């Protein structure tokens, strides 16, 4: 009996990578039972890879990384395919099945035809994934249509069985050939990145998406004193009784999380200040943070030596507040802070003095709030070599793409993603 991992190592690695939604045990067993049932024929590595991708991957953006991982785990996957084959052979001997049919190696003239088809199909190969093709249909290989739609020359034994419950699929010889990956290499193609656009009309994310983002930052708690009319409950009560007897009430819910957005309004942020305004506007519109107010600083919050605190200003600079004042009366773990600043990335600035002071501020924040994140409007590739790259090591920093904004919300909720 060959010990096999049943793809468990692969599954464990996929789950350990926190950058995507992990499949659960149910999904794992679903894949195993699909393979075991034989209803989805596996003829090569690509078939199995497609099955795993469709069942376990939930995001298009992570596709390249997932395929890369499958490629690295090729040996394990092929071992598993071998195991299935072995299992079939064992079950056959127990069940006293009909002898297997002769090899289905194509005859010489069919071989020539196949090669012609392959040549004809060359320019039809998917440019993005030249050898990554889904499995063939479960038609037997002796079909009249001998053209190989998937540019693969399949030779194998047909495993015949009179018991339809047993696995019954063609097991190609080259599943055992681990030293010929060339035909089945998955090509990892480059992902094209759209550059950011910062105009008044087109933000990197939509208004609705931002509102939704803020709405996910909720930790509802019943308000102690106020009640509000529960309209649905009232109508339901009327319908049950057949007449109006009175209103139904429910407790008013507060959001336990307190959101603070600190915006940098230095000169470098002029071009992207509208997006900052949009962040504020959508946070208010989301109805989860109605009492929230934005606060501003310029490059770095001002440190007040006398009170060992940092000062922030309102937009017009007519009022100032210290951070301790803002956070007073609030439970630290419920305080969420979002910093919106380019951190020197636009100008490629790396000021050591400023870095030291900002790091001190970030440590101060860590001690006084629950979670904090930094949203940087500059593209990620500009961070290294500037102060932003240094800050990114102190505080989770995200760009303003849709994906990163979602990740920042997850971080604020306490879920840390790699």
């Amino acid at each position, binding site marked *: 009996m060959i010990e096999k991992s049943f793809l468990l190592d692969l599954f464990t690695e996929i789950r350990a990578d926190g950058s995507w939604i992990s499949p659960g045990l149910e999904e794992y067993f679903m894949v195993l039972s699909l393979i075991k049932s034989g209803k989805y024929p596996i003829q090569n590595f690509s078939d199995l890879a497609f099955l795993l991708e469709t069942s376990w991957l939930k995001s298009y953006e992570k596709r390249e990384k997932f395929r890369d991982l499958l490629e690295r785990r090729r040996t394990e996957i092929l071992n598993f395919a071998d195991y299935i084959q072995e299992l079939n052979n064992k079950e056959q001997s127990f069940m006293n099945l009909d002898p297997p049919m002769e090899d289905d190696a194509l005859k010489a003239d069919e071989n020539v035809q196949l090669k012609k088809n392959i040549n004809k199909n060359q320019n039809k190969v998917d440019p993005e994934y030249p050898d990554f093709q889904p499995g063939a249909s479960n038609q037997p290989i002796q079909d009249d249509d001998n053209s190989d739609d998937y540019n693969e020359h399949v030779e194998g034994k047909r495993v015949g069985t009179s018991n339809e419950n047993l696995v019954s699929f063609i097991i190609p010889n080259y599943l055992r050939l681990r030293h010929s990956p060339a035909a089945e290499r998955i090509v990892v193609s480059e992902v094209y990145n759209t550059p950011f656009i910062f105009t008044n009309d087109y933000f990197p994310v939509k208004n609705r*998406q931002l509102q939704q983002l803020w709405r996910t930052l909720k930790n509802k708690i019943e308000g102690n004193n106020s009640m509000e009319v529960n309209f649905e409950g009232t109508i339901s009560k009327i319908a049950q009784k057949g007449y109006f007897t009175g209103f139904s009430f429910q407790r008013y819910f507060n959001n336990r999380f307190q959101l603070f957005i600190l915006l940098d309004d230095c000169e470098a942020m002029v071009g992207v200040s509208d997006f900052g305004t949009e962040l504020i506007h959508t946070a208010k519109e989301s109805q989860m943070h109605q009492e929230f107010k934005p606060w501003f600083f310029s490059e770095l919050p001002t440190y007040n030596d006398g009170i060992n605190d940092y000062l922030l200003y309102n937009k017009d600079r007519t009022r100032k507040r210290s951070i301790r004042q803002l956070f007073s009366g609030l439970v630290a773990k419920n305080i969420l802070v979002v910093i919106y600043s380019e951190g020197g990335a636009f100008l490629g600035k790396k000021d050591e003095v400023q870095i030291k002071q900002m790091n001190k501020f970030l440590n101060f924040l860590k001690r006084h709030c629950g979670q904090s994140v930094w949203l940087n409007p500059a593209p990620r590739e500009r961070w290294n070599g500037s102060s932003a790259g240094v800050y990114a090591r102190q505080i989770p920093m995200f760009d303003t793409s849709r994906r990163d904004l979602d990740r920042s919300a997850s971080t604020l909720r306490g879920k840390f993603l790699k």
Partner: protein
Amino acid sequence: MKEFKGEGLHNLEESKKFNLEPYLPSKKLIEAVKLAQLSGRPLLVKGEPGCGKSRLADAVAAELHGKNFRDHYFEWNVKSTSKAQDGLFVIDHLKRLSEANLGKQSHKSLNIGLERYGDNSYATEGDYLKLGVLGKAFVSSYIKDSESPVVLIDEIDKADIDFPNDLLLELDKMTFEIPDAVDQDGNGVHIKANEKNRPLFIITSNDEKPLPPAFLRRCLFHYISFDEIQIDEIAKTRFPELAVAPDLLKSALDGFAAWRAKISNSGISSKNISTSELLDWLFLIVKNNYQGEIKKDDLPPYHQALLKDVESIQLFAKL
């Protein structure tokens, strides 16, 4: 179980029988649907707007069920105000209240009722109660000698973030109860799909909002990438007139590919041209019997069908 092979609407003649347009799914998409049928899991389909996500479901239904596919096909176009319960059942409280107050039904009980049939299925409409899309699909899974019903939940990301989570149990176990409702024997109403003929769910999303992980885990996932779409075949199938004008077709498709690449590379527009725009554009070309030249570097003729924002038009107008 009849497997989907993508051949039901593969030409104009066949598709006209169903009063649908031809639909040519890619091999990968066919395999994904097959996996969904075999595993009994919903299939979540994403892709660019206009790539054919929503059409997949009726193509699957037409192939599996033939001419009467509409009896086995259920469509739910989700809106931002949609609630999960709307897909299960709707109780007409106002009608009940009104009848109670007006005394019209004084000889009849005001119970919310749904007739139950012998094989655990129910009627789709009862007293003050109507089953929603999912309820109807579950009930229709008991129709004898029929394939699985097909359910399309279109643009699920439009709804509130709680919407997918509210459907977890129903998508997983394919069962739900209707509180306060009774059948003809006075028993509670418990709607459950036929285990041997579970409905096939096809869920589409435009990726405008993230979907909850618990929901995503339960779905199979397929992204219709533009490269897997057989543009050439689709154009020839939809417009046989172009099949006999190969030069015009070639220049149209070459132009389309070039404009698409240009819009993508420029990054100035968030909406690139896709299959649906191509087909609208080809329709105008065929309808107007366009005989002129189509140049890759010029503004396309009938650009109104292709280019949907000012930036894209300006991009080509500058050339």
